[in-house]
């Protein structure tokens, strides 16, 4: 009885694990993707949210005025760049521009993830 159950567990696991090889679904390597248009727009909207948070920060005294203007300008520009990206499709460049790409990705994802947590 126990052996039967055990065998069922084993077979079930193997079946689920082997499925990608047997199924007809095509899998693509998604390494190169930078993000669809929707993702980019979602990021831009998050930047808008973040600017709103900045205003709250300014109101509560957490930021000085000059700081607020400085950061807000940076964010406005990032939002503008994303807006530009939405209209012009981008290509992923290969490794000789790696450093630049890293920094750009960092900037984007940092700002995208900063939206909710103006700490």
């Amino acid at each position, binding site marked *: 009885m126990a052996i039967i159950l*055990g065998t069922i*567990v084993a077979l079930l696991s193997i079946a*689920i694990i082997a499925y*990608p090889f047997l199924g007809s679904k095509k899998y693509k390597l998604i390494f190169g993707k930078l993000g669809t248009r929707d993702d980019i727009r979602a990021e831009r909207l998050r930047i808008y949210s973040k600017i709103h948070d900045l205003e709250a920060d300014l109101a509560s005294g957490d930021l000085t005025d000059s700081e607020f203007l400085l950061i807000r300008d940076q964010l406005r520009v990032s939002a503008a760049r994303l807006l530009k990206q939405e209209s012009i499709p981008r290509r992923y460049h290969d490794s000789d521009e790696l450093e630049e790409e890293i920094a750009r990705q960092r900037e984007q994802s940092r700002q995208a993830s900063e939206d909710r947590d*103006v700490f």
Partner: protein
Amino acid sequence: MAELGTMALLIGLGVNAYSLLGSIIGVKIGLPELIVSSRRALYMSILSASVASTALIAAFVQNEFAIKYVADHSNTIMDRAYVWVAFYSGNEGSLLYIVLILSIISSISVRFAPKQLARSIPWTIAILAGVQLFYFFVLSFFANPFELLETVPAEGRGINPLLTHPGMFSHPPLLMGGLIAITIPFAFSSGALLAGNYGDDWVNVARISAILGWGVLGTGMLLGAWWAYTILGWGGYWAWDPIENVALMPWLVMTAFAHSIMVQKRRGMFRMWNVALLNIAFVLAQLGMFINRGGPVVSVHSFAASTLGMIFLGFLMFSLIFAFTLFLWRMPRLKSDRAMESFLSREASFLVNNFLFLAVMGITLWGVLFPLFSDLARDVSVSVSAPYFDRANGPVLLGIVVMMGVGPLLPWRKASSRSLRQWFIWPTAVGILTILVLLSLGVKRPVAIFSFGVIAFVAFAILEEWARGTLARHRNGENWAKAWWKLVNGNRPRHGGYIVHISILMLGLGIIGTNFYQQRTDGALEIGQSLVLDNYRIEYVDIGDSSRPDRIAKWAELSVYNIDVNSYATEKSTAKAQGSTGFTLDDSTLRPGDRLISQINPWHGFYLDFNMASVRSGIRSTIIEDLYVIPRDFLPDGRVSLAVSINPLAWWLWAAGPIFILGTMVALWPQAADRPDTQMKTRITRESEI
């Protein structure tokens, strides 16, 4: 059940081995099917772990004493509700529990990881599978809970009596769950590094999983302390024993991480710190597993000394080497985006934070390892216990509390002298005022007084910020409660953090009260006699007996009175002359000012099969102090030997627990998409309709 369980363990071994190898190979040769398949294998680990766990629980329920683990940790008289506790009460069962939890949270975190992490996920999966592989390997070959006995005993040994208490339903699982949960953020950060992803995409996942695990671990430790206080009956709640320490150390590092990660999110700094903190926490968690399984250090909790200890040591070493090789290899890419502009900035305060938490961790680690070191170096064994840790860690912990107040008051980047004055003046004034008030009231112990001042400083800083924010909203017409709640909801990580800080302050109050101002006395009473300590009188009314075949149990019915100390002046001065703090009264007549306030029934049990005593203390608690009574012994001549203490502010220790949990939940709750500002909302909606 045993065969099913063992098969399930071996299947778990197999799927995780496949997942580990498949992820790595799939990435290297660029075969997406293999990557997906390896991810599914990770999910299948849950199946193996749950089947094995269910088999073990079923074995307990059915009293299958042929299985050694079941025979060792249960018996037929045992209440069925304790099956759950019995499951993880021993070495093998706890390992199974750990891998079960790990399999579940690994799969959840991978399933819900953001898409941007696509490149690093296979590596994360490899790490998660690798850790699970280790546990399944140990379970299958070195610590099999399904090991059979040669001859089947008719009855089991029964469950460890110390575990039959509500606290034990949750303390070990939370503790072990919290420790193993550190694997998740570690796997995500290491996965990103292995994939060559130096961006900050992994930060959100890491933050959430880290704080969740940290909250669980913290709650587990608090529950353990509460359980020790009420059940173990040695009169305290934290002994700095190696097992407690080994849970505390990763928790401290994760606290530092939870703060430090905000700097990475906000300013793109501290990247190296954060990776290093996760590495250290993960390695410390493995150290915890090692010491738990019979490492060289002894404690109230250690399960068994064996080859198992050596295997865990090996894994610990491997994790250490792996994590730091990866760190050093990728370190050049982890440089900060920005510079630290000023010492008077929130970034700098988080840096100080990191270093203070690591200092406490380091000192604790040193204290834990020193006996071993002394043994190896000089062949002389020494003990390092509470007095050392209290003295060595105390000042640093106080420093952390100071930072809890200073950090949030400093702005990002650079504080102007105007902002310094504006934000610091009131809290500092309140702190100093508190110290002066305490001094004028005649309170002694300067260190404690200073600590109270610090607590007041931090508390005021938090309340002031809340007051200002709530007031601003209140002006818009919202009522106070609603305004505050909206304020908190507007920035949950921050305000949830403040709630957690408040819980730490409460904890601090309790620690200072019980450590510095405790009063103690002992006495042996016949029925009718009373023991007097300060303004409490404890009368021994009757003895009760709740013995069973497997245990001898007695309890003392005690009446607690509040007294007017003047009525007892003569006895008091006699006692003082003799050098005692408290004294015994022979007769049971009450005196003017005596007021009955409570009845407590502390209990003392002795378990014959385990040769172990268990005590339940009698506690009468108010927010000012606890009256705490332990029956040391029921003497053959009919007297009961009592140890009585007055623990000031102990209530605050336990009240801190729910606040801690609340704060953690608020901090973790995902920020809602809608904003109170309707204008902004319409703008965004309009935008998204395009």
